[in-house]
């Protein structure tokens, strides 16, 4: 084959942008990066203080021209918001957050300025109990079709027959492994923890997130992911303290480490797993056969939303399967909506990272509200991190 004249030329602008975007995708994690920096909170506060956010009076009747959404990094197709603006004239300000706890802290403090946000399943009952989210007015969401939703994933949005949140997507928490560095096949959380102390010494990452890190340590002994039992938590703590000196990092920002080859194995969420595998095929994503976490992220509207009409309008727009399918292709997490699944390409539906086999899903548990708010687990995590 003759050499192309392009060989040896400097990088093209397209390729540069492509690589930059890939780097960007890798450099930000879903739950933690903005959490530790507080940037998410800062943008929300700045927007309010500078008067960029509309006042409730301004948006009383019309959609206004601006609204704010709180969500996760790498979670949307940016084009979605551009298209929404072109259709409605409403500019969407995106605030990215690090953790559900952080979102809860911000909403609890009041005046978040968001007209829509993306909470995970187990937080919704807490939000309802605290009275900080709206019972959704389904008349304004004609694009949503509950009969097309997989009830297994979406039940937690409905409390006592009232819908408080509608689903964005679901996913799992599994193990991402660099199979070039750790060739031994892995299928369980027991192997994950044992490998962390052997071949994976100094190369393993666990989340800076009590729900998954404690939950998956509990799975080592076959206990429930959500256990609040003193003796079971004590065993999990013992394991975590034993593993701690062997870890590469305690961080939910695991994409950079995995991409750079510094970390060989990490706890990982579906969408990050799909993104890592897409760019680096030797990174495999597996589920522990003992079980672990399954999750659904929802959309909800805060009670004190400054621009509810726009919040509803955007939510309805996002529920349009034609819009949602682009979101799923960008973010990598599977859909709960049969109408969206019908539109997704076959290779996405056949990707076992996104749609794992039924027998692997069976033992997985949804995180429970009590698990998230339990002070005992929070203290355990702090003891683990400070050890």
């Amino acid at each position, binding site marked *: 084959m003759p050499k192309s004249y392009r060989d040896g030329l400097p990088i093209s602008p397209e390729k540069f942008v492509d690589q930059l975007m890939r780097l960007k995708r890798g450099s930000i994690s879903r739950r933690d990066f903005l959490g*530790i920096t507080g*940037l998410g909170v800062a943008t929300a506060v700045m927007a309010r203080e500078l008067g960029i956010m509309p006042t409730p009076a301004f948006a009383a009747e019309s959609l206004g021209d601006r609204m704010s959404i709180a969500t996760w990094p790498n979670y949307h197709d940016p084009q979605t918001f551009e298209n929404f603006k072109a259709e409605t004239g409403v500019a969407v300000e995106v605030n990215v957050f690090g953790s559900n706890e952080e979102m809860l*802290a911000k909403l609890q403090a009041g005046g978040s300025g968001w007209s829509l946000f993306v909470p995970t399943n187990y937080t919704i009952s807490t939000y309802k109990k605290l009275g900080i989210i709206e019972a959704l007015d389904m008349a304004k969401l004609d694009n949503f079709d509950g009969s097309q939703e997989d009830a297994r994933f979406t039940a937690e949005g409905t409390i006592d027959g009232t819908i408080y949140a509608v689903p964005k997507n679901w996913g799992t928490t599994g193990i991402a492994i660099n199979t070039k560095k750790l060739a031994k096949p892995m299928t369980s959380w027991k192997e994950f923890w044992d490998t962390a102390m052997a071949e994976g010494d100094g190369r393993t990452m666990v989340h800076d997130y009590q729900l998954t890190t404690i939950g998956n340590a509990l799975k080592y002994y076959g206990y429930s992911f959500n256990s609040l039992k003193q003796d079971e938590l004590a065993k999990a703590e013992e394991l975590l303290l034993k593993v701690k000196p062997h870890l590469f990092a305690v961080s939910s920002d695991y994409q950079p480490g995995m991409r*750079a080859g510094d970390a060989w194995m990490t706890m990982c969420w579906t969408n990050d797993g799909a993104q890592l595998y897409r760019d680096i095929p030797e990174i495999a994503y597996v589920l522990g056969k003992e079980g672990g976490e399954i999750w659904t992220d929802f959309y909800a509207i805060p009670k004190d939303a400054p621009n509810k009409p726009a919040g509803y309008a955007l939510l309805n727009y996002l529920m349009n399967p034609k819009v949602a399918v682009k979101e799923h292709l960008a973010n990598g997490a599977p859909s709960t909506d049969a109408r969206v699944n019908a539109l997704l390409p076959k290779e996405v539906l056949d990707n076992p990272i996104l749609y794992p086999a039924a027998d692997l899903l069976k033992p997985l548990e949804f995180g429970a509200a009590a698990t998230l*708010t339990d*002070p005992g687990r*929070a203290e355990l995590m702090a003891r683990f*991190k*400070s050890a």
Partner: protein
Amino acid sequence: MRGSLVHKNLLTALLLAPATLWLVVFLVLPFVAIAIFSVGERAPEGGYQAALTFAQYANLPARATAFWNTMVLAPIGALACLLVAYPVAYYLALRAPQRWRLILLALIVIPFWTSLLMRTYAWMYILGGRGIPALLAYVGIEDLRLINTPGAVLLGIVYGYLPLMILPIYVSLERLDRRLLEASADLGAAPLSTFIGVTLRLSLPGVMTGFSLVMILLLGEYLIPTLLGGGKVFFIGNALVDLFLQSRNWPFGSAIAITLVLVSVVVLIAANRISTRLSGARRVDLI
């Protein structure tokens, strides 16, 4: 005459008002709020619930490791900064050609205009597998890990806080009366003893200022240990972030914050005392 005195007092009060207001709104009020939080209780769903208890303060030993790490690593970090900063400040103030001095100073200050977060993130890539280790792999050093080590944290601290250490030392060296150096040489002192007996001694106020400045900021540091240390070493700053944003235990977080402020004040007073004593009768300039 009386009239003009009243006039003068009124003018002083007016001129002081903005600064006083600033202090009250942004320093005193938040501090009072935090103090009130610290004697409260954690609400069942997290946050704050009014109460009057000192249970949070009694619980401080639960974060003993974080306090210990911070109390050990802050002075070590400040010392490492000092060791790098002194020669730089010395060169700048006493050796660098006059016309280069301003440019060199600017080169030290300019990186400060970028967020520490961005600069620390850059170090993550430099120390990460695609940075220095990838270069070293060419010469046969494989699988070297630099990131998420104590050395990486120390490097991040020195890099991030260096300008804060250089500037006060530079200022005190710059004011140094050159005739004292000549006098010392004329009286037969070797260069080294001139340096120790005159230069170093007279620059001590600057050293102490830089040291306490860096030290106090390090007491609240959380970004560098998180990003370059892999979140494995818990500082007080990390404990605070966790308590406010993860477990949402505001009262305990407030109690720790208050304790941290008190510790910082003690450090500042101690540094001032030492500085005054070391520099003898010389007045201490805390910039």
